[in-house]
């Protein structure tokens, strides 16, 4: 019933009968918040963190530590084209899902589900990671199998368990749409001819690099305003970075990830098969069950937690680490658990305080604007519901 409705809506969209006129769409000539438009006409990130340094320029450390090298330098038009693409269900195989379906601005640029659901209503197997601050990342997907946003994009686009499109259909749909043809020409003025895949990935990357969250209350504390954090949150920060809890050893400031693969032995939700994670990607049995350390920025906005959504809330995710090294590893399995997975024996109060502190990492001031309409005229159908 629901799917029938979805298909109907999709069909109406592609029919174009109710589609907006091509001239309704223009690309922003201003950079998104947080960016300066340079004389060359490209957008460059500006943040107070640029006044700090970091060891070996790795962007890892303590409070006043510089960020890692990042992607920027896209034009406002490329970023804005990426925004339209990001919200347009035209990118999925049956016109029902957009990138924003699983990376929903209203849900911390994730989808609020344990695991995402693809166009055929199928369990995608893993949770949708947040897109906040992806401009700083070098590895993408939970198993770190892509090394750039452009390399990441084809994954969900063409996976039958996710957006279920094909390169041929994607390019046919885009090139068949007069608005997109015009917008791509504006965004990529040096290229003529049909829209190509790389432009799609490039525009999506441009948009995603604009999703910056660096103005949380924690950041205000960092930049010198002690009162930005409550006593409880400071207590939580000190447990978080203590060598008893050791959270910050992997969730290292300022991004709250060190981007490494870690085997921590989190449980799968009931009925889910064990996920070997990076083992297959890196062909390394020692990394069985290893996943990329996720950022904790805006973490309070992206429940449930873990690669497969085993923890319904922040406190239970934190409490996992307090239940003993390897307590959730299946009995018949040997994992090379990360050395920081220990038995910290935190008090219940300390667990609470860590969760309190994580709440201070929320900042969605630069949340992107959802377009009222997208060039395909399709209506965003949330997550195959």
């Amino acid at each position: 019933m629901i799917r029938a409705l979805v298909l109907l809506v999709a069909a109406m969209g592609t029919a174009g009968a109710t589609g907006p006129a091509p001239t309704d769409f223009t690309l922003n000539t201003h950079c998104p918040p947080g960016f300066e438009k340079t004389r060359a006409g490209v957008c460059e990130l500006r943040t107070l963190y640029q006044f700090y340094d970091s060891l070996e320029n790795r962007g890892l450390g303590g409070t006043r530590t510089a960020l890692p090298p990042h992607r920027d330098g896209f034009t406002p038009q490329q970023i804005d084209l990426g925004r339209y693409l990001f919200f347009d269900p035209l990118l999925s195989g049956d016109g029902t899902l957009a990138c924003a379906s699983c990376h929903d601005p209203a849900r911390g640029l994730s989808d609020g589900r344990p695991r995402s659901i693809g166009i055929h209503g199928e369990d995608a197997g893993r949770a949708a990671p947040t897109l906040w601050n992806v401009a700083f990342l070098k590895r993408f997907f939970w198993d770190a199998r892509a090394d750039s946003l452009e390399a990441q994009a084809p994954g969900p686009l063409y996976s039958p368990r996710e957006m279920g499109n094909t390169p041929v259909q994607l390019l046919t749909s885009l090139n068949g749409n007069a608005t997109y043809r015009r917008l791509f020409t504006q965004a990529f003025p040096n290229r003529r001819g049909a829209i190509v895949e790389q432009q799609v990935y490039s525009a999506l990357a441009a948009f995603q690099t604009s999703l910056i969250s660096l103005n949380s209350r924690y950041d205000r504390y960092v930049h010198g305003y002690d009162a930005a954090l409550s006593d409880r949150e400071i207590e939580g920060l000190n447990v978080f970075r203590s060598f008893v809890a050791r959270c910050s050893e992997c969730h290292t400031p300022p991004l709250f990830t060190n981007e490494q693969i870690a085997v921590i032995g989190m449980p799968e939700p009931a009925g889910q098969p064990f996920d070997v994670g990076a083992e297959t990607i890196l062909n390394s049995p020692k990394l069985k069950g290893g996943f990329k350390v996720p950022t904790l920025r805006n973490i309070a906005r992206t429940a449930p937690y873990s690669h497969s959504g085993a923890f319904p809330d922040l406190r239970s995710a934190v409490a996992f680490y307090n239940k003993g090294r390897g307590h959730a590893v299946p009995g018949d399995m040997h994992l090379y658990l990360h050395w920081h997975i220990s038995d910290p024996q935190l008090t219940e109060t300390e667990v609470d305080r860590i969760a309190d502190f994580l709440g201070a990492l929320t900042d969605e001031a630069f949340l992107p604007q959802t377009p009222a309409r997208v060039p395909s005229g399709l209506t965003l159908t949330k997550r195959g519901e």
Partner: protein
Amino acid sequence: MKKGLILGLLVAVLAFGAGLFFGRNGKQDLKISSSAGGASYRGGFKAEGDAVSGPAGVIHSVAGPAPTNVVVVKDGESIQAAIKAAAPGTIVHVMPGTYHETVYVDKDDIRIIGVIEEGRRAVLDGEKKLNDAILYSGNNFVAENLEIRNYKGNGIMGQAGNNFEIRNNVIAESGVYGVFPQLGQNGIVEHNVVSGIADAAIYIGMSDNILVAHNEVFDSVAGIEIENSRHAIVENNYVHNNSGGLLAFVTPGLPIKDTVDVIFRNNFVVGNNHPNFGAPGSTVSGIPAGTGILVMAADDVVIEGNIISDNKVSGIIITDHAHASNITADPESDPNSDRVKILDNVMLRNGYDTITEAKALLLADGKVGARNLDIVRVGPSPGSCIINRHQYVTAGVSDFAECDFTNTAATVNYLLPPVPPREIKPGERGKVVYLGICTGCHTYNGRMIGPPVQVIQALYMDNPQGLADYIATPTRKRDDYPEMPPQDYLDPETRIAVATYMLQVTN
């Protein structure tokens, strides 16, 4: 479990055995070198501008000039309260007494200096309830003359503070690491007495340009560990009765991938035979108790002038990741100890009760009936060298070349002059705050969450101070806009800088 680190040794016996047949035809000639003369090793680090620091320019201090602002904390008062109230650039003198607290320092130029009166120190006592004694992330941090006991996490832990000095502290029974600077550059750890630590008494993690000198470390799992760090000198330390004495490691899975250019010189590395009480899963839990110096996957480690005695497994072990069965894998880390350089050391009574795997290696190397073991190498160690090898009982070092230097006298230390704080011009700060914060709610000429910048400019055209004051304590001005949240977290200089910038924006 305890021997997990070199469980793979047996596999390597075959390889060494083959070397015995094919590589060692005839006895090598004795090559005797004197380390009193000869060429000197120059480490891999060159300061900017290529300045070579000679003995005349030796750096003894890295934290910069001492602040003149001093506050005193007395027994019964709180050190943290004093630090919270202190401006950057403050010396906190802590009087003798007992302090039960975790002290954290997230600002620059703070010095916590204990006052010792007739041997009585300021004691930070965690009572086995508190996590860490001192956490710092500020630059130019100094901790001196303190006594730290009974913490569960670390004694003194740094996260990214540069130019640190940690000296003259007594740290006992204080958790996982006694002194642990991490992700910092340019630091000194000296004259500390650290004991009873469940991992490394002194642990330099992911840091550059470090001097660890004149410390006494004992009764711990590891004495001094240099891990995923570059340009470190460890000298003149007394390292005794740990499970392993001096360690140069690359731990896989860390974001900084290598350890390069470490000099272990003039240390006493004596009787490191303490039973290994490392936590299950920790890297050091795999160290065979009785190891003097352990090099694992670190490059350009120089071992010179140490007195290495009475370590029952071996004086020196050189190994790689493949033979450390208890650690994870990391495709981005080079697993081998490249270019180890063993210069003259005094080696006495090591390896008298070594592990089975090492005995097998000795046999494979043709050392039948050896009752001691000074140096054992397992796993590839390309480019390595040694002098006066005939002095030691060795296994697996026969293919080491002869070093073309005999000492490290030319390398005084790797410390840097204190780097002055970066000057940020008000205009630059104003622009970055405007773009980094204000543009979340204001655009130049459009309606967003707040009114357009053009409208604000019209209101405050010649009055940046008025705008700076308004944003600290905003009041509702327009019915059709939400009330602005106060920006009082920006200090007054930043507020005037951003107000000034905002009033001259043109697009």
